[in-house]
């Protein structure tokens, strides 16, 4: 009976799996995509009026000392340690900001909301956030605005009217193009490729995957997407999942995209331990420190990422200027300390710049 049950379930799984697997790329979201042109011709810039929110009767904070709390998606991972570093650097440079980072230990919308709520009650002047969900976080951020608190997002956006500005590390279609182009170059334009992501519910990752699918379909049609696997934010699980992909597809698999700073090094490790360096390319988003061993060993040619320290740094500068009242709706650029002038796009977003590609020559210059 036992075996029958097991067999039935396996058959069922097999059936439903093959039925579903052939549709779109698994792991993307269902929002409209806007792939960039294959040759990188920038799309005509559409000017959008300011669509962010505004705090209700904020006190005059111009030049005064302000307390700021930064609530990232979760604490205790390398990426958000780096953004925190940037925030603290900027705060130290500005001299009139008292900033700290606090947040949930896992990427959980409910806990993130509770943290924000508590800090609103405690009476901070400014909030920096990276949203676990753009819609779910909106009510509590609107509450902050109503209390006259300045709200600026970075890394992961909320709905625009729930915050004043959002510092965008790189546009989704830009990241997607960089990842797909890099992969196409390394595998010679064609072959089977797979994705290791965190969870399908993580908005940024879902967005990138959808944009990658759209861009690859238009510009690299010979790249054959095989499969997307989930691996949480867990090093060992990511390694196991990537290894399973390598074992499953054998020579058919030419490349793996790691969608998180956890998945990419773990995928590189899996390729290394499978002695497939050079046969299977690993391209992905990652922090340089975690990738140094693999880039140094020539197993990974390059890593795509913006600089998260700069991201935090820019977000802090933007928040200070919003609090001072010097950054107003309608501005077309912002001065962000050592980063210089940053562009305003999409109405109320500030673009950090093009994604950065780390390789063997420059990776040792970075420490985060």
């Amino acid at each position, binding site marked *: 009976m036992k075996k029958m049950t097991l067999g039935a379930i396996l058959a069922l799984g097999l059936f439903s799996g093959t039925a579903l697997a052939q549709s779109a790329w698994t*792991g993307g*979201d*269902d929002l409209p995509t806007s792939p960039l042109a294959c040759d990188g011709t920038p799309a005509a810039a559409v000017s959008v009026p300011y669509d962010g929110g505004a705090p209700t009767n904020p006190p005059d904070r111009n030049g005064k000392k302000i307390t700021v709390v930064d609530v990232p998606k979760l*604490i*205790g991972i390398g990426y958000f340690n780096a953004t925190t570093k940037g925030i603290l650097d900027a705060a130290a440079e500005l001299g009139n900001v008292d900033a*700290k980072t*606090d*947040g*949930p*230990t*896992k990427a*959980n*919308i*409910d*806990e993130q*909301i*509770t*943290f924000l*709520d*508590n*800090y609103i*009650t*405690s*009476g901070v002047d400014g909030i920096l956030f990276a949203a676990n*969900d753009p*819609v*779910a*976080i*909106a*009510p509590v951020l609107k509450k902050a605005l109503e209390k006259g608190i300045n709200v600026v997002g970075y890394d992961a956006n909320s709905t625009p009217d729930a915050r004043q500005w959002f510092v965008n590390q790189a546009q989704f279609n830009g990241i997607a193009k960089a990842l797909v182009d890099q992969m196409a170059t390394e595998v010679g334009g064609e072959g089977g490729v797979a994705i290791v992501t965190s*969870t*399908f*519910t993580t908005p940024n990752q*879902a967005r990138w995957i959808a944009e990658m699918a759209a861009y690859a379909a238009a510009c690299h049609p010979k790249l054959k997407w095989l499969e997307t696997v989930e691996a949480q934010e867990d090093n060992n699980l990511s390694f196991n999942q990537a290894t399973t992909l390598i074992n499953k597809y054998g020579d058919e698999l030419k490349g793996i995209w790691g969608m998180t700073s956890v998945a990419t090094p773990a995928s590189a490790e899996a390729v290394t331990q499978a002695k497939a360096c050079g046969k299977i390319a690993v391209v992905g988003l990652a922090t340089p420190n975690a990738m140094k061993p693999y880039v140094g060993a020539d197993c990974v040619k390059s890593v795509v990422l913006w600089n998260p320290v700069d991201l935090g740094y820019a977000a802090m500068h933007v928040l200070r200027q919003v609090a001072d009242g010097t950054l107003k709706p309608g501005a077309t650029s912002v001065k962000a300390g050592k980063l210089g002038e940053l562009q305003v796009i999409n109405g109320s977003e500030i673009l950090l710049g093009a994604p950065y590609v780390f390789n063997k020559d420059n990776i040792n210059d970075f420490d985060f």
Partner: protein
Amino acid sequence: MTATKLLRHETILAVLTVIALAVLASLSDKFFTVENLLNQGRLMSEVGLVALAMTFVIVTGGIDLSVGSILGLTAILLGVFWKNLGLPLPLAMLAAIACGTFAGWVNGFIITRFRVPPLIATLATLALYRGLAEGISEARSVRGYPEWFFFFGQGEVLGVPFQLWLLGLATVIAAVILGLTPFGRATYAIGANETAARFSGIRVNATKLWIYTAAGFLSALAAVVFVSRVTTTRSDMGTGLELDVITGVVLGGTSIFGGRGTIIGTVLGLILIQALKNGLSLSGVKGDGTIVVIGLVLIGAILAGALFDRNRGG
């Protein structure tokens, strides 16, 4: 077992809670304000609703690990019924709650009909229900609910958050059922000695089935409040909820071996945890420090209760 003995742990807990409130109030002047306290009530409502049912479950000597997954599944179904199947939202709410209740019933059915230990049965459905939520939704969220729907999670009645009324009402009902009715006595009897309860004519299986179904129902209710509060539906909602709920119930003095526990205790336990989370945050302690304190308080409070019991010759 006399009422005083039953309430001993609750007394300790009440004293502890008052001390904690006093200390936290002295640490931050933002803590003991009506607005903050009401807001905290809003934030603890979902855990509170589920904890009421969990108290019954644990009093029978069982456990339900799948409550967080039922919450996630109900939330997803609410979105799917409304957006994908096009049901009117009130109907979708009812249908989703019915499905969540059914999920609870399935737990009870597996536990009573097949005699699977509750820990194992709900460990399996923990994965199953979460998996269904992920599969049905394909990890996509449903957004764009109409404004009136946000009343359940964000609205107020007479200045008090709606879900706090709901929690209050549910608490009173649960306390009355557990404390004053034959059903409540049956619940305690099952937890104290299931075989004896069976022989004394208590309908053990029916009672348990009701209790696990109620756990499903309250988890589903919490799901609607949650979706309304955060205005969106995600398949990972309620992940890890079971540990928060069990911590509250156990801190409230309900014995994990069954047969002992009160709704009052559970409510006190929940208040203490929420007050610590909020109060410590307001006085500048970071989140990772706060969970260490909660761990220490959990062990400390139960330890104090156990030592107190022993000194009284209990």
